[in-house]
């Protein structure tokens, strides 16, 4: 059984894993990182989105062994810098961009990658950028608002820092 060394939300883990184990199952069932949920089995819904070395991936379509030597950030790792919730988390709350909240971790992680690519997206750019993340509750309108609101906030922080 291969041994992997992965940094997850700032903590380093070493584990023996079956080669076929999905990253999302490793996170949830081995590490107890249950903040990242699973919504489908065909990589369509995006609920399980995490960052792998800073880029968003659907953790149901990555094997745990592929994360060996790399760094994973989940929604649980976003607010660990001591400054409170991440601007995206705050914006989702502030603009009512979640109802049941099941898609929210994936939406937030995908949005983070989207804003890294494009720090000032238009409404349509947000809609297109989040095409791989499905939500059944909100009709997306407030999710789009949240992402654009967080973008403004994050650009402001960069200017001041």
């Amino acid at each position: 059984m291969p041994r992997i060394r992965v940094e997850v939300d700032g903590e380093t883990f070493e584990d023996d894993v079956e080669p076929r184990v999905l990253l999302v199952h490793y996170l949830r069932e081995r590490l107890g990182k249950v903040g990242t949920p699973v919504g489908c089995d065909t990589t369509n819904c995006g609920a399980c989105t995490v960052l792998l070395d800073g880029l968003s991936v659907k953790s149901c379509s990555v094997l745990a062994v592929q994360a060996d030597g790399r760094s994973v950030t989940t929604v649980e790792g976003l607010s660990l810098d001591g400054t409170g919730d991440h601007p995206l988390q705050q914006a989702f709350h502030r603009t009512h961009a979640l109802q049941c909240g099941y898609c929210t971790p994936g939406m937030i992680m995908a949005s983070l990658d989207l804003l890294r690519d494009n720090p000032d997206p238009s409404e349509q750019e947000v809609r297109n950028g989040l095409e791989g993340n499905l939500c059944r509750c909100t009709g997306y309108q407030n999710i789009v608002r949240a992402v654009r609101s967080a973008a403004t906030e994050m650009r402001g922080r960069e200017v001041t820092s």
Partner: protein
Amino acid sequence: MTEIGRARLRTEDTRLVTGRTRWTDNLTPAGTLHVAYLRSPHAHARIDNVDVEAAKDRPNVVAVLSGKDFAEEQGALPCAWQVTEDMKLPAHPPMAVDEVRYAGEPVACVVARDRYSAVDALEDIDVDYTPLPPVVDMERAVQDGADLVHSDMGTNASYTWVFEQGDLDAAMRDAPVLLERRFVQQRLIPTAMEPRAVLCEPDGSGPNMDFTLYSATQIPHILRLMLAVVTEIPEHRIRVIAPDVGGGFGSKLQVYGEEVLALLLARRLGRPVKWTESRSEGNMAVHHGRDQIQKVTLAADRDGLVKGLKVELLADMGAYLMLVTPGVPLLGAFMFPGIYKMDAYSFTCTGVFTNKTPTDAYRGAGRPEATFAIERLMDDLADELGVDPLEVRRRNWIRHEEFPYESIAGLTYDTGNYEAATEKALALFEYDKLRAEQSDRRDRRDPVQLGIGVSTYTEMCGLAPSRVLGSLSYGAGGWEHASVRVLPSGKVEVVTGSSAHGQGHETAWAQIASDRLGVPFEDVKVLHGDTAVSPKGMDTYGSRSLAVGGVALFRACDKVVEKARAIAAHLLEASEDDLEFGGGRFSVRGVEAAGLTIQEITQAAFAAHDLPDGVEPSLDSDVTHDPENFSFPHGTHLCAVEVDTETGFTRIRKYVAVDDVGTVVNPMIVEGQVHGGLAQGIAQALYEEAVYDADGNLTTTTMADYLLPSAADLPSFTTDRTETPAAGNPLGVKGVGEAGTIASTPAVVNAIVDALRPFGVRDVPMPCTPERVWTALREGGAL
């Protein structure tokens, strides 16, 4: 500032945006065993043999069981709605024993020490099937000589339910305008984002075994009772918890075989057992929604006044009747007349068995189907007479001064103002401007045509007055329970029998309690979703939470205030009549300095050293509230679409929704409910369909095949409200959860048909995919 009407940010968000969630699949107590199900690959087959021996030898496998192993203890899944005395109700085993009747029905299960081992071992279960003829077409299923889903019943018709009011023959006879239409409500898959999951933890042994069952359910209370009935495990030994639940939309208003089997496996093995479905098994095994063939006939005079409406439905039940399967189309029976006055109405519905996944409630449950038909007809009537679709509605709708109004279907609409909602919608939409653009595009023969669709809807929700449910032969009441506990420290706990799964009860209920008791919002905690915490409840569906459960809470708060008033009067040595209550404080009228806060009173009630005679210690109350009437939200939705006549592609250009949901507790939450409702209704119009092939195989088993719209597929909506308080409850609230879904589907399809009328198109079947629009254009004959 009063809390009612305030856009409070949601308290439940804190855990949801940070991943500190409590989904059922997150829970894995020590020693948990994992279950995987083998499901039928056939729509209809006899099970000749199930060989589980090889699977038992796989690593980490604890047990492998087939339907025969459960036959003595599994009972039958419940149907709570015997809609007619002679309704055919086939036994529905949680796990198939002798015969499978839809693709996806469970036939065996593996219990293993981990999820992967359980799934692996399914491969080694060997099932011998003899395929039987599948019944996949509703219309053929009710013809003589049709193959049967349940051979012992002799028919595929479960029931025929009839409602008649007025002299329909007279209304139809010599009617100058008679519109006959056939509409198909396609089958939909509800697709809550959280797949189903269930965990059952046993405690103790033998007859003294207790069970805690966690499930991604909308109905912990109903589920507990039904589990007891089905398994004969005493009800008081079962505790059901619905932790965080990731959406339902009706699909988790169900008693599923996997829930029953989790209980039976936990009893058999004496260890916690957990099952979490994959999306592709869920698409086959979560109940589906809609699926009706509607034959409708509308009679009107040349002025456009509707005289009568005849509705004949075939409703696909699927293979079995589940919790409220047969009743869903009947909820629509009362809504086909919509907001319109007419002299006569007749409704006939036949529930039909097919070899498909059972249908049951899906957001709107019966009312979207009805609203679609009447709103499509009203647009066609306008076209027939050459008048504006809003004008023909105006001539027929109930005017605001006519409320309360008894509809032809026998409902009493308490309040409404269709004129006001329509005026507001027209202004936001810029109706005249868009009509002018439409005309211009028609003149120019623009390949991209503009269409405008109207939907002026009402719906019945806030389910439901118990006596009405009784008259419809439903198996339970429609009340809701709330209790309020003012703790010794002055903090407040609210317990509700409503079971939230995304609606924001923890916020809105705290707003109601804060408002009524005059305590800070932050001092209120709302508890729900656990039968040990919330002793009574009828749970969440049918846009009932606020209109029934919120009103129960409102009344429970007032009851607390009345108890506090008696204590305050005693302590202040004043007459109760001389006390005023405001801002959480009782004061003696005219003597402002003499007063007691609710926090001071609760301390006195806790200590109980000096209470008036006959007053029990502690400051709390319980109310079980049974509503007097349904609530009737209404509104006007306007949709503009651009249809590319060369490709058939439809783009929603503008969507305006003006809804009247009565008094609003939290406008932010209400707007969110409308957004999500619109998305689901639009999805039915444009994108979604559960497709079966001729052999009864579901071909849309994954999210790659079943098209759930993404952010890129939907427009930004313009929403607004009018506020006509409901007369039937002291809060003045109406339901909002389903209104958007009910209203939007016909608005979109009306818009597409409106765009294409010059091309001879009179209908496009749903979902209106580019291919279907393109085909309708070619068949229109005018291209």
